[in-house]
């Protein structure tokens, strides 16, 4: 008898937006459903804008969230303000819903650290997007440890991609979360690609969720293009964690509809056919179909929201572009709480140099 494993899988909505079975009780709330849809649409429009800004050189490299909106929006919607989000770089969706401002996200990708200073009180303790793959999973465990040590009923939520599940940090995080019974939720956005490396080459296991087994924690798969499925399972996991019942690993099956980042060209390594298939299953259209089928949404709603969303996005772009230059001392002033006296000379040189260059540039 070889080792055997069974992994739960949740889906409510078929790709065409029709229901499979009956919805959970929480879904009987049209306002909530419309809010979720609107947030997904807003996210996607903002994402498109960001890509346009990158193409015209107004921000730098950008990692699109296209196709992952259900996951991020559900997370952002469900977390309480005093929970802590420890995101990776493809989490515009969750961050926006949490309260990070669009202009902050643009500033960040625009090469300005102030984009991670976050003005909104609700996200003061949230982490900035994490670039070194999977390292954030451990930070989330540290945050959750702090909650547990202080006896607070708060939850740390961390996200990562399918590729990230191969890195030791992720696996060590699952293990300590299990060993210490931490209030943390790991959400894997399995979008099938890690840049050019397909999911199948990343790991021989049929699901990534089963990595939970080795750590003795709960693990499950959901259809990441189905807002109902994601919302339902993230809600349950948050609940469990908050009630001291331990961590959960949720693998959301989705698809990276975009290039990896604006610096990538995915047509080099994946087929048109695969991409086309993925578009047929994408989350936004799916929820929209459901809402339309159930007369919760229609074309006039859509137009009104498109126009409001565009206005908000345009305002953010304007704010972004109007942001004053950083103070010359900024890159020094936050390296230590106080710039070390031992480095006083370097400070003077830096300030002189920056002001000199700025003067020259006019």
């Amino acid at each position: 008898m070889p080792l055997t494993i069974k992994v739960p899988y949740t889906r409510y909505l078929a790709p065409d937006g029709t229901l499979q079975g009956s919805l959970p009780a929480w879904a009987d709330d049209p306002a909530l459903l419309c809010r979720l849809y609107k947030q997904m649409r807003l996210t996607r429009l903002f994402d498109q804008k960001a890509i346009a800004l990158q193409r015209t050189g107004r921000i730098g490299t950008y990692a699109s969230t296209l196709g992952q909106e259900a996951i991020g929006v559900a997370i952002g919607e469900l977390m309480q303000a005093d929970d802590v989000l420890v995101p990776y770089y493809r989490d515009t969706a969750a961050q926006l819903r949490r309260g990070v401002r669009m202009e902050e996200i643009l500033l960040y990708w625009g090469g300005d650290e102030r984009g991670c200073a976050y003005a909104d009180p609700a996200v003061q303790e949230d982490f900035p997007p994490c670039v070194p793959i999977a390292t954030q999973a451990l930070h989330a465990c540290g945050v959750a440890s702090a909650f547990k040590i202080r006896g607070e009923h708060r939850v740390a939520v961390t996200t990562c991609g399918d590729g990230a599940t191969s890195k030791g940090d992720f696996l060590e995080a699952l293990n300590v979360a299990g060993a210490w019974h931490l209030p943390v939720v790991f959400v894997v956005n399995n979008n099938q690609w890690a840049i050019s490396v397909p999911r199948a080459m990343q790991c021989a296991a049929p699901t990534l969720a089963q990595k939970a087994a080795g750590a003795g924690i709960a693990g499950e798969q959901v259809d990441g293009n189905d807002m109902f499925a994601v919302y339902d399972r993230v809600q349950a996991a948050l609940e469990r964690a908050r009630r001291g019942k331990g961590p959960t690993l949720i693998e959301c099956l989705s698809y990276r509809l975009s290039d990896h980042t604006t610096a990538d060209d995915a047509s080099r390594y994946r087929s048109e056919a695969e991409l086309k298939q993925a578009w047929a299953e994408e989350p936004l259209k799916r929820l929209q179909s459901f809402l339309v089928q159930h007369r919760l949404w229609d074309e006039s709603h859509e137009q009104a929201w498109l126009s409001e969303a565009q206005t908000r996005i345009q305002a953010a772009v304007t704010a972004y572009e109007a942001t004053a230059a950083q103070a010359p001392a900024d890159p020094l002033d936050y390296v230590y709480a106080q710039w070390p006296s031992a480095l006083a000379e370097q400070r003077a040189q830096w300030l002189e140099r920056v002001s000199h260059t700025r003067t020259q540039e006019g």
Partner: protein
Amino acid sequence: MSEQHVNKVTLVEAVNMALRRAMRDDPSVVVLGEDVGTNGGVFRATLGLRDEFGFKRVLDTPLAETMIGGLSVGMAAQGLKPVAEIQFLGFIYAAMEHVVSHAARLRNRTRGRLSCPLVIRSPMGAGIRAPEHHCESVEAMFAHIPGLRVVIPSSPARAYGLLLAAIDDPDPVIFLEPTRLYRMNPQVLEDTGQRLPLDTCFTLREGSDLTLISWGASVHESLQAAAQLAEQGVSVEVIDVACVKPLDLATLEASVRKTGRCVIVHEAPRSCAVGAEIASSLYERVWLELLAPIQRVTAPDIPPPLFRMEQHYLPQVADIVQACDDALNYA
């Protein structure tokens, strides 16, 4: 005061005393690492802390240094003050990504919104007949990284005062404890809670003919060398750098300006070690006042040998005296 009333503590006991004091005074201080709980650490640096502060503040971790590093970052960002132990410095590499890419940068990355007030303690250095990887002196790898502080005490008193300061410090501190000194030269030490500054060198012996600069276990041999030279009528100033990042160059500069000669001693391999930084910075500052080139007495550029050859690897008193003689007799 009679002998038996004098409370003499070793360096490792001083570390323990500082940890206990910090945990008593500040509930946000937590200790974590491999074997730090029930066992009190393989060197007993955390002895008794579990009993006094419980499971929630003295955490035996699973065996994973990356995790210890990453967890500490998360805790620190939440306002705890984690003091993590890496069991030996030779096992810190797996935590490097979290130290370099996160701990050292979280404040800067968030423009001060989040910060990382953590301490990573680790035993360092050779000379205790230990197995491979238990003898490393790689302080230079950390001293190169902006955003970190790197502190290396060389006496019980400095271990106590500097560790308390490191725990207070709002930024990440790598705190390296020379195992060779752990049980040497116990000192009278009161548990006053008195901090020592993290931004100044310690002048251990004043002198006028030559400045002998060192840190960690080599301070011990440096002091012996200075004593020997004193017998020959040479007045050597001995400075324990103690905080190798950032460097208090002002004190070093003033001393070398006074003596005109300088020898630097360290246990790390020579190339690209902290000694190189000190030497080049001093040359930049006191070039005209120097009466001889600065000498470096260091381990050679080889991995620390297993213990049969260990003695040859470490800078010896005779090597230091020789380098001082060379500097003193420089034409």
